[in-house]
């Protein structure tokens, strides 16, 4: 995508974001600041590597990574649930690690490798974790699902890397179990409570990876 097109998208979504801010009573007083171009009247350039592509943006430094992805790059797979790091719906993978995209600023990720649900797989070529969630019905409404899947993919990598968890009996012997999955996925809430099917989906992928 050409830089000018990205710029156009940015301006449009900035207006959209401004309207959204004004619509929220608690934040109304920041609306004018946002439109006047906060942070000393300037935006900041930042280049994010999203799903393998370098994307240049000019952002108000207040823009969270989640809002940069959703509102500026129109990658709306990552969801905004609580916007406070409590629900995990915004989970993405940055430099190989799962994080809450809502609790980090986009300008803090210059050059970072970012993978969102759109980068894991496509409807034509699903990632094995996506396929497993479909097979096991690991959702009902689906709102938490992109975060669950990104989290699950990176979580299995954490087990593979020998990173222990709260339920690991011997800190030096890290291995897959459903018990480990339940603990390690506690940062992803599913209000539909599809948890047992989510664990089944993750178990399938873990087994396939081990085979």
């Amino acid at each position: 995508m050409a830089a000018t097109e990205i710029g156009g998208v940015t301006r449009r979504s900035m207006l959209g974001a401004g309207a959204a801010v004004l619509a929220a009573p608690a934040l109304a007083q920041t609306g004018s600041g946002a439109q006047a171009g906060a942070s000393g009247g300037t935006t900041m350039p930042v280049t994010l590597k999203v799903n393998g592509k370098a994307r240049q943006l000019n952002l108000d430094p207040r823009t969270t990574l989640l809002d940069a992805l959703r509102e500026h790059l129109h990658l709306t797979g990552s969801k905004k649930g609580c916007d406070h790091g409590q629900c995990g719906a915004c989970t993405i993978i940055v430099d190989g690690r799962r994080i809450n995209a809502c609790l980090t600023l986009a300008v803090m990720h210059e050059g970072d490798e970012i993978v969102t649900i759109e980068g894991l797989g496509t409807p034509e070529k699903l990632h094995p974790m996506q396929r497993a969630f479909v097979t096991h019905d690991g959702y009902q409404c689906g709102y938490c699902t992109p975060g669950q899947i990104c989290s699950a993919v990176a979580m299995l990598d954490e087990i593979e890397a020998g990173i222990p968890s709260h339920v690991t009996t011997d800190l030096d012997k890290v291995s897959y179990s459903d018990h480990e999955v339940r603990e390690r996925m506690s940062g992803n809430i599913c209000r539909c409570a599809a948890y047992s099917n989510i664990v089944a989906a993750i178990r399938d992928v873990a087994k396939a990876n081990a085979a």
Partner: protein
Amino acid sequence: MRPFTFERATSPAQAAQAAASLQGARFIAGGTNLLDLMKLQIETPTHLIDVNPLKLDRIEPTKDGGLRIGALVRNTDLAADKRVRRDYAVLSRALLSGASGQLRNKATTAGNLLQRTRCPYFYDTTKPCNKRSPGAGCAALEGFSRNLAIMGVSDACIATHPSDMAVAMRLLDATVDVVGSDGSERSLPIADFHHLPGSTPHIETALARGELIVSVTLPKPLGGTHIYRKVRDRASYAFAVVSVAAVFGKDGDGRFAFGGIAPKPWRVAFADDAAKQGAKAVADAALAGAVTTRENAFKQDLIGRTLAAVYAEQEARP
């Protein structure tokens, strides 16, 4: 969020100087607590200094046989470090009991120490809070106080420090290494790092304006049996109602630190002295002078029972 300007730090001394020179400047590292509070306009910095470019993310041995942990070492990496697992298991356990996998991947060692209380009235800007607005009053004293502090409190504030990591750091007698705005360095014992509220609950640490934490240093390993036991309302991803960090020596001596009961990681020398007398004696010593509300008085019993469970776990260890 209120508007702010943003810069990327180039050296610890530069960052400290920049922070000292501008009223309203704050450092940002993981951002998991600061951005949370900025969205609620509880924190309203006018300038953010991103310290992530400083690469203070190494864990290195010290000449005294300890470990120097860079301020930016992520909670996940600290908990998983081989040396920490082997020699400071109580620290690994404490870290792993905190937050979620996503947050531990982002949260830093220094940021964890500096995180602010989760007192519901601190978070509720419609209620008075002496931490948020000095002199405003404390809504927690007569409010929902079940999860608030019983030790070290004042009539201005009964907030708890929420960290698990800091409890283990306190147990291990870590020191906090800082750089000041003039480039000078100093180290503070973690015992002196967090302030009790007294009449100034808004002053939470001993850091001077602009001072930047660059590392946290652990003394040489204690050996012994390391246990961190956390009691909470959910099985995972919840703050402690109470927690106990303990290291037991072979001869039955022990040391203890407590989370969820005080405005700072709580440790009492008399409690360590009582180790050989068992859980009740340790609890009595640790909780001498407790000030409770109707809702949180149960934490006294819970500390005793959690200590009993810690002793049982220690006895069951090979």
